[in-house]
């Protein structure tokens, strides 16, 4: 959906950030980039390879038998190993990507990639030694109709008919399964567009004819001149489809964002999350991304990774107005629920658009910025003096240097502490901007407070220790308060699943009457505490604070949060309580509660790669 703009600074920074990272054990570009893109067809003229890119160098055309397989551990005695730009001499590239696929002649590729018609409409996957081919062979006409046309003597039928075609990507055999899946997806999308254009105006047949004509021409020339040439080089300027395929390949190898216009008409857009979502030298697997997106809550916020202006400029003219409204009203201090109200969209739409922006690498999910947010330096942050990040920071905020700023977050720091009250208020705005800048580049993580109920074991009966230690979670049962999994990419979901208020729960606070030590309230409290063991109940009731029925009631009501999976802000949101109330409660019952601070695992994905 977005035009790849080369002025998208963040991409450039991320690419060079990778180059500077030490300990990169393998070149991850190879694992997530295709080696080659190939277009094959099968028809009345048999199987043909129409186009492939990159094309073989002239000398390699006949060298398939002479390319040696070299063990990655062999010493480099011959001089022709490609220079590793990262200078990591430990790793030897056995065969260059080009050589891997160059070893296959056009004819053999045509034979193995143009499948039988019963393999059409499904994922095609073939692995030969170190190369994996993936595609989506697509049927153009029913095989039976070909027979009819063969017997038809009319001159129009002389044109060879195409039965099926396939856009195949060649990858290294050890590519991640999710990368293979993504490549298949792209192949399928291109196939759908081509199938459509073929039915509408025989686009594919025309392009195929052009390609084959050039191939024949070059073969004739080679026979007469004797000098071998690559026909595909000649095809490029003449065929739009060839240029599209080349562009797809180039984009996949660099930015991971593909945007094509098949026949200058149908748009095919695609992004490879493995290239877009990188932190350091690791990519974030799409499934992990999707899982995280399904767990975001209305109290989270959307942080755009680029300026509003730049982002809007990347959108096509016919994009959804909801998207534009969202981008314009979006802010790091506003949570998704507020965003829904301000942008006049329902929460479900907000979730879907937010997920879309995150998937395409244009935004991340954070907790909305506020005074009490506590940030710390991310363990994966690049704090090198010479990193492009440091340079960028210096340009954006003259007079300040990144390492000094980052050093301040060596110990967890709240935003209010960071903004020194003695400084002039003009500085204040800039400090907030700095924090936003650092969050966008995954340099900071936010810490939240988690609480766990752990009652001191009873001394008198050591034999029962085993039971005493059975954690609350085993008895109460896991209750996930995350956004219902109805959220999935592109599919319509019921808006009943999304509620603006907290999800209803058995022990909901809503039913409890305010104030007073009424019998009803006391019974409620008893019910809530019934899930505890006798020993636990006794210990809790013996706490001085438990003598106050209101405090006890609040404690009982919040009991199910005390399993270490819900942070303070979540409890505040769900129960509509103030931070001070909760903190006081925790303090009163501190003899049975254990408190710790760490990042929110749900959104920490956006700050660090999966371990």
């Amino acid at each position, binding site marked *: 959906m977005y035009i790849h703009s080369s002025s998208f600074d963040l991409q450039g920074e991320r690419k060079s950030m990778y180059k500077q990272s*030490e*300990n990169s*054990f*393998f070149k991850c570009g190879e694992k997530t980039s295709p080696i080659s893109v190939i277009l094959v067809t099968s028809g009345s003229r048999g199987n043909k390879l129409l186009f492939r890119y990159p094309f073989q160098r002239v000398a390699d055309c006949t060298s398939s038998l002479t390319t040696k397989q070299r063990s990655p551990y062999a010493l480099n005695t011959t001089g022709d190993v490609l220079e590793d730009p990262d200078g990591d001499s430990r790793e030897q590239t056995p065969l260059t990507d080009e050589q891997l696929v160059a070893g*296959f002649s056009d004819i*053999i590729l045509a*034979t*193995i990639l143009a*499948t*039988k018609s*019963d*393999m059409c409409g499904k*994922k*095609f*996957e*073939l*692995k*030969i*030694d170190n190369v994996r081919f993936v595609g989506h062979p697509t049927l153009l006409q029913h095989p039976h109709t070909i027979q009819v046309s063969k017997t038809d003597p009319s001159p129009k039928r002389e044109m060879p008919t195409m039965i099926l075609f396939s856009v195949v990507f060649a990858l290294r055999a050890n590519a991640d399964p999710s990368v293979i899946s993504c490549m298949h997806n792209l192949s399928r999308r291109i196939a759908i567009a081509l199938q459509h254009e073929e039915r509408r105006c025989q686009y594919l047949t025309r392009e195929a004819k052009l390609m084959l004509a050039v191939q024949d021409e070059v073969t004739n020339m080679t026979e007469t001149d004797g000098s071998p040439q690559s026909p595909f080089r000649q095809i490029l300027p003449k065929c739009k489809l060839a240029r599209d395929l080349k562009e797809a390949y180039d984009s996949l190898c660099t930015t991971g964002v593909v945007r094509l216009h098949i026949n200058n008409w149908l748009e095919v857009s695609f992004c490879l999350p493995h290239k877009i979502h990188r932190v350091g030298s690791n990519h974030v697997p799409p499934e992990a991304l999707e899982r995280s997106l399904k767990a975001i809550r209305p109290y989270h916020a959307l942080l755009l990774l680029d300026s509003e202006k730049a982002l809007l400029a990347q959108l096509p003219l016919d994009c959804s107005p909801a998207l534009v409204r969202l981008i314009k009203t979006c802010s790091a201090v506003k949570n998704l629920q507020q965003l829904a109200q301000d942008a006049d969209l329902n929460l479900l739409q907000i979730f879907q658009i937010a997920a879309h922006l995150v998937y395409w690498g244009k935004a991340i999910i954070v907790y909305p910025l506020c005074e009490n947010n506590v940030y*710390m*330096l*991310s*363990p994966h*942050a*690049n*704090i*090198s*003096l*010479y990193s492009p990040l440091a340079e960028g920071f210096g340009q954006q905020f003259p007079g300040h*240097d990144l*390492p*000094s700023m*980052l*050093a301040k977050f*060596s*110990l*967890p720091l709240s935003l209010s502490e960071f903004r020194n009250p003695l400084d002039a208020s003009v500085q204040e705005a800039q400090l907030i901007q700095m924090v936003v800048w650092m969050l966008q580049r995954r340099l900071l993580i936010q810490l939240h407070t*988690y609480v*766990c109920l*752990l009652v*001191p*074991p009873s001394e008198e009966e*050591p034999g029962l*220790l085993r039971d005493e*230690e059975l*954690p609350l*979670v*085993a008895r109460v049962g896991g209750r996930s308060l995350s956004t219902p999994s109805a959220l999935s990419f592109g599919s319509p979901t019921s808006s009943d699943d999304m509620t603006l208020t907290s999800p209803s729960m058995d022990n909901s606070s809503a039913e409890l009457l305010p104030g007073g030590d009424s019998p009803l309230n006391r019974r409620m409290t008893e019910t809530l505490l019934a899930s505890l063991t006798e020993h636990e109940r006794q210990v809790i009731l013996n706490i001085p604070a438990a003598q106050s029925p209101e405090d006890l009631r609040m404690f009982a009501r919040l009991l199910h949060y005390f*399993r*270490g*999976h819900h942070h303070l802000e979540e409890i505040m949101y769900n129960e509509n309580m103030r931070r001070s109330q909760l903190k006081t409660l925790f303090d009163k019952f501190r003899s049975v509660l*254990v*408190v*710790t*601070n*760490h*990042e929110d*695992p749900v959104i*920490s994905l956006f700050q660090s790669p999966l*371990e």
Partner: protein
Amino acid sequence: MGMSRIECIFFSEFHPTLGPKITYQVPEEYISRELFDTVQVYIITKPELQNKLITVTAMEKKLIGCPVCIEHKKYSRNALLFNLGLVCDARTKTCALEPIVKKLSGYLTTLELESGFISNEESKQKLLPIMSTLLEELNATGACTLPIDESNTINLKLIEQRRDPLIVQEYDVPVFTQCKDHFIKSQWDLTTQQILAYVDGFRHIQKISAEADVELNLVRIAVQNLLYYGVVTLVSIFQYSNVYCTTPKVQSLIDDRSVQAECLSYVTKQGQKRACLRDVFQLYCGLTPGTTVRDLCSRYSQQVQRVDERRLIQYGLMKGLIRRLQKYPVKVTRDERSRPPRLYTGCHSYDEICCKTGMSYKELDERLENDPNIIVCWK
């Protein structure tokens, strides 16, 4: 072997009159006519694809084979083409099966060249019971040793593919993932045997190298090998001045009973009653940025009575319940004439610098504290 279950083994060849066909398959009738028609071009292949490992997915099945072609005038059509392959479910990970297929194709080629095993109709029939045995044993134990005739035996083993290990640094500390005695020492190479005694979960690579009198790089490689097989994992050097903090995984101590049991028995001091969960959990949660291990022990003196704090930290790091906060010095301002910083760039931790230069933490601290141009980041 749970992961790669073989559903079928087939032997396919190019018949001089009938063309490509499946001569034998166990279990019988597993590969349908349809399936074979679809994939035969990948089984009995053109010359360009011979001796290559080919895996094709079709109709919910994965077929792995290695087509062989032996050319000789004695064969009708001057060549013998065959392929002994495996069939699995399409979702199976088949990387581990590939060496097996390759080896089998090698065996059959040798057998044919030596004694015409395949071209002779009588001896070819022996293939069927061989394939049956292979299927059974590979699925059951992942290994198979099968004598074919007086001079040839097939030896096959499924080897699990593992991820590449991290590079081991001289300041890393290897620690056994299971009790050391669990491993049969004589199975390892000499270098590993020499250093095993020094791998105690507290000595770092440089120290092991010095004390075991083995060259540093050899120690690194040996430990990397142990890392590859999951025998050890790496943690950081322990000092009482170290700072750690919890990760979200610390909650697994509450959620997972097996982790609880394992942890409590691991961290309890020798000879003491088993530590209680609450104490241990409190100790882990007491680890925060700015708190050293020394601070922790004095602050939680009651909880630490039954707990060996070194093993507490060790366990926490091994299981990812806590992580170490390392110090990284950065020289932010410098004289234009002075050399650019080599180690104080934010890329090298105190652990690394001390290891490389031989300084102690205290010495490094003193040196850097007095330098106004250097700031320290913790992460």
